[in-house]
Every structure is written in C-alpha cells, then in structure tokens.
C-alpha cells in the first residue's frame, strides 16, 4: 500500500511548490548550469575569486534591482534609477565641494559631508516623489513617467556638472564610504550593504504584510482597492524606496570614484530591468522574487564575463543581453504553461 502511495506523495509535494518558487529554482539552476558550462569553455573561469567577482562587480545593479523588482511586482516600471544614481552622486559632490574654487566646476556649496549626503538623498527622494505623483495621482503610464524623470534627473546632473564631472576641492573624508573594506577582506562596504538590502528585501517580500500587499496590488489592482488597500500610498512608498536605494548607490559610487560624473549609471535602469526579467519577475505584475532577480544578475554576469573571456568584442554584450532576456521570457512562459497544463 505504502509503496503505491509514495510516488503520489512526492507528486503532491512537488505540486505544493508555488509557481514562483518553481521559477526561482529554474533561474537558480540555469545560473549554476551556465557557470559550469562557462567553466568548461573559458580557462581560469572556475575559481572562487571569480565567483566573488561576479557578485561584487554587480553590487550597484543588484541593489537597484531590488527597488525595480518590487515595483515590477506591483505592476509598475521604474526606469529613472540610472538617472537618480547620476543625480545623487553629482549632488553629493556639489554640496560637499568647498566654496571658493578657481573655476565654476571646482566650487561647491561647502556643506559638511554628512549633511551633503543627506541633501543628495533628498534630491533622489524628490525624483521618487515626482514618479509617484505622476503615476499615482495623474495616472500616466509608469513607463512614460519614469522615462521622463530619468531624463530630468540626468539633466539636472548634467546642468550641475556642465555635462562633464566635478572631482576637485573635495573634503578628505569624501572617498571613505565607497572604499571602506570590511572584515579584513577585500570586500567593500557597498557589497555588504547590497547583501543586507537583499536579505531585508527577501524578508519583507516573504514575511511582512507590506510585501504581500505589493503582490496583491500587482495581481489584481481592483481587488486590492476593493479590499481596502491604499494602493496609491503603497505605490508611492515603493517609488520612494526605489529612489532611496538609487540615491544611496549614487552617493557610494561618487565616493568610490571621488567624483560626480553626469553619465554615471548610464543604462543601469535597463540592466536592473533586464536582471529582474531574467529572474522571472513578470511585468504583468504580482509575480516574481528578489532571489530570482539576484540569480538573474548572476546569469547576466556569467554570460557577459564568459563572452569577454572568449575574446568576443564588447559590442556583443547588447546582443547577448537581448538573447538572454528573450530566452528567459520564452522558457519561463513555456515552463509555467506546461506545469499548469
């Protein structure tokens, strides 16, 4: 008797796994599979240091991906994060630069560094608030709004830096945060911050009401409204969080390079979107996970670094990204359709 029921029990266990967990597992397996394949093809790929590099080199995009994933789950785009990275970095430099430089680009406002970072973060949040205002209040499609704010944020950064960069007359502590190494290893503070953010995000997404509401809103906005969820305020909060993360990333990048460059973070918004899509976050809303997004980033990192290892010209990265996203979307749709048949 027990011999007969056993396979069915296994089947039941298998069915218990949600579609989301299934896709996350699929993405994880693809990431590991790709890494092993690349290890065969590319010499010196299979090394611990390389694994570490795959994660640490992408801390900025993965951090941005957290905010972008949450918004995608709620059914909204955020393409402004790249612009915000540039804006907050440039603002932090401009505020911190001492007054009385020799030319306009070396003269700042002379704030103490902590105040400068807070003000820069305020600038980032202002863009996030603008996103929320246009999307929630005016009900304009988020893709249009965030394309607009992306240009506005980068535009302000370009005006402040006159289209180039500011890197002189900075206080000595400016480069501290971005280059701080931790635990006696070469791992820097931004990477640790990314890991902490990821852990918090996973907890919020799985265990907290805030995270679950995000899924409900994405899955069925009307039902969420009718069940008394303040959808407008929730999406506003999501945009503010995403902007805050982007602001912190911008400040840390500016600190790491000790400069405020108006083109920093260029195309990062697309990369953040790409890794979220690779990780199984669906733009139709209500589906996806931050863990999936993380492994999506690993997939992209393995593919691009393997391509560089195979001495392909850097121009190939655009095509590789396109093919990877295309395959990810098609296989995920196919796998889900097959599973739920």
């Amino acid at each position, binding site marked *: 008797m027990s011999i007969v029921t056993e396979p069915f029990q296994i089947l039941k266990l298998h069915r218990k796994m949600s579609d989301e967990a299934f896709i996350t597992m699929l993405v994880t397996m693809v990431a590991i599979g790709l890494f092993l394949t690349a290890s065969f093809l590319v010499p010196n790929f299979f090394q611990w240091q390389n694994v570490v590099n795959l994660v640490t080199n992408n801390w900025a995009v993965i951090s941005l991906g957290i905010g972008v994933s949450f918004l995608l789950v709620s059914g909204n785009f955020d393409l402004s994060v790249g612009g915000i990275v540039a804006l907050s970095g440039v603002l932090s430099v401009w505020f911190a630069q001492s007054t009385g430089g020799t030319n306009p680009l070396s003269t700042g406002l002379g704030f103490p560094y902590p105040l400068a970072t807070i003000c820069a973060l305020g600038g980032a949040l202002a863009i996030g608030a603008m996103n929320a205002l246009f999307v929630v209040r005016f009900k304009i499609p988020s893709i249009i709004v965030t394309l607009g704010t992306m240009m506005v944020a980068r535009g302000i950064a370009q005006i402040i830096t006159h289209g180039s960069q500011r890197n002189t007359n900075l206080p000595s502590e400016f480069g501290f945060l971005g280059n701080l190494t931790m635990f006696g290893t070469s791992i820097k503070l931004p990477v640790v911050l990314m890991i902490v953010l990821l852990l918090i995000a996973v907890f919020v997404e799985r265990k907290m009401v805030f995270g679950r509401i995000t899924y409900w809103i994405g899955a069925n906005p009307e039902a969420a409204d009718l069940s008394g969820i303040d959808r407008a305020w929730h999406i506003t909060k999501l945009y503010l969080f995403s902007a805050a993360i982007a602001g912190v990333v911008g400040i840390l990048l500016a600190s790491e390079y000790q400069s405020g460059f108006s083109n920093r973070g260029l195309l990062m918004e697309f990369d953040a979107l790409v890794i979220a899509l690779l990780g199984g976050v669906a733009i139709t809303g209500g589906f996806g996970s931050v863990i999936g997004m993380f492994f999506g980033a690993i997939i992209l990192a393995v593919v691009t670094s393997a391509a560089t290892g195979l001495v392909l010209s850097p*121009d190939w990265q655009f*095509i590789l990204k*396109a093919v990877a*996203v295309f395959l990810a979307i098609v296989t995920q749709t196919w796998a889900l359709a097959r599973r739920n048949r």
Partner: protein
Amino acid sequence: MMSITQQTNASELTFGAKVSGFFQNYYIYFVLVAVVAILASANLDQFDLFERGNFLNKRNIINILRISAPLLVLAGTFTLLMVSGYIDLSVGSVMGLSAVVYALLAINGVPFLPAFVLTMIIGAGLGAINGLLVVRLNITPVIATLITLSLFKGAALLLVQDGVSAIKSGNGLKMPSWFNSYGREGVLLNLPASFWVAAAVTILLIIIQNRGTLGKYAAATGGNPTAAKLSGINTGRTVFTLYVIVGVSAALAGIARSSFMSLGDPLSGDGMELTAILVVLLGGTAFSGGEGKVLRSFVGALIIMALTVGMLTIVPAYYQAFVIGSALLLAAASNHFISQKGKAS
C-alpha cells in the same frame, strides 16, 4: 425640477465639452506659433548662432526643417502605432542600424536607389521582428521592443569594425559624392528630398487615417481590443502591419540622418524613442490608445525641433536632457488634464 437641473447641467457640460474639444484639436498650433514667436522675438544678436540674425531667417528655417526630417518621417507612423495602444522602443536602434547599413552599402559602391530600397526593406524586416515578438509570441510590447532595442543596437555596433566609431571615408574606401545630397541638397524650395519624403509619408498617413481601413482598425484596436476582435477586425494583423511600417519609417529616418551627417553612425538614433513618444504625446495622442491624429504629431515634431535648435542659442547644450525630460512630463500631464475634462463632460 429634476429634469430642469439635469438639462442645464447637460447644456453647460456640452459647452464645456465643445471648448475642451476645440482646445484639444487646435492647441498644438497655438503652441507652435507661441514657440516660434518667443524664439523670433528673443534678441539673439549677441549670440550670433542663427547665421546672422533672426530665428525666422530663411536659412535658419530651412536648416531646422532639414534636421527635422528624421523625426518628421517617424512621427506619423509612431502615432498610428500608439493609437492602436502599442509602443516601439526600438526605433532608435532601427535608425542606427539602417544608418550603418545604408552607409555600408553606399561606401561599397551600391548606387543610391538600390541602397535606399534595400535599407527600407531591412527596416521592414526589423519591424516585422518586433511584430512577431508582440503578436505571435505575446510578449509585452515594452519588453519585446526593449529586447530588440538591445539586439539591433548590438548588430549596428558589430557592423562597424573595432576602433572606428562610425562608417565613413577612410581605409581606402570613400563615401560616394551623392551620399549627402538626399539629406542636404535642396530640390524644391531649397528643402532636401528627405524633407519632402517625410511630408509625402505624412500626407499618405493622414489619408490612411481618415479614409483607409488600417487607420480605422488601429483606432478600434486601441479603443477596445476585445470589441475590435469581436467585430471581426484582425487585430493581430493590424498591429503587425503597424510595426512593419514603423520599421520602414525608422529606416527612412536613419537614411535621412546618415545622409545629413555623411556617415553611418550606429548610435545616431539613440534617444529617438523618447523624442518620438514626446512628439506623439504633445500631439494629444492618448497613451492608452484609441485617439490621436497624425497631423498633430507632425506639428508636435516641428515644435520640438524648433525648441531644441532654438534653445541651443540661449542655453548651453547640456540643458537639453533636462528640458526634453520636463517637456515629456509636462506633455503627459497636460494630456491627462485635457482628456480628463473631455471625459467629465
């Protein structure tokens, strides 16, 4: 009592609807006149950039119309696509790729007409790829065209050999002398062929929108896809066709810009998707689809070009991203308020 109040309400609202309808139809022309008037009245003598003199100087106007050709040729088809409720973010990459292809053909000795037609066919093919991804594979338009944005951009970059930024004379190859006559040399009223092609495409699209089935189908698809399907419209084929003609017009835009600049630059279309969306929104097309006029987008394109060129004389070039972004948000917001008023009444 009830009926009287209702009647007065109704008549007031119809008046309101009339006003907002009039505003919706004609405000774009007022905006164009206002922008030109402001730029023309600015005292620009100290800048000396409008080639000695006023904004309304003949050479300046010709110059602006010449530079506008790529945007003008794209605006109409992009409007029809957005009217049907779809979007194409890959137009900039299609432009870049066709600019490279056109320049490559020309530099390798292909005469003008075959190179022109071949590039247009390739544009149609690229549009068809978008159409297949969206219609056949059911991928969300934004994502599908983001994929092709990356794909076509990569292809364009790969076609240009390493260490060179664009296809141009050099390495024993020379651009033929006819190469920049399409985008620069005046054929009629001192305006180049590229402008007249854009004008012809726009007129053709206005006719299609007002008289042809494609225009009606596009509006029906955007207004209510389910109803359109149920009334027997092949929405899939309509959307596919629209993606193909957007591809063709993006290729025409690429040819115009490539010819104007005398080189095949893979990045020459970067940011075009944004400008195209801006122009269409400025023309009052609702992003949700179902509404919009080709002619108004054409005027919207003229406004944007007048603004960007005019602005260069007043503020440094690095103000442009900010102004374009703000204009996009402003256009989207005002669109929202206008359509809101129309709906309320």
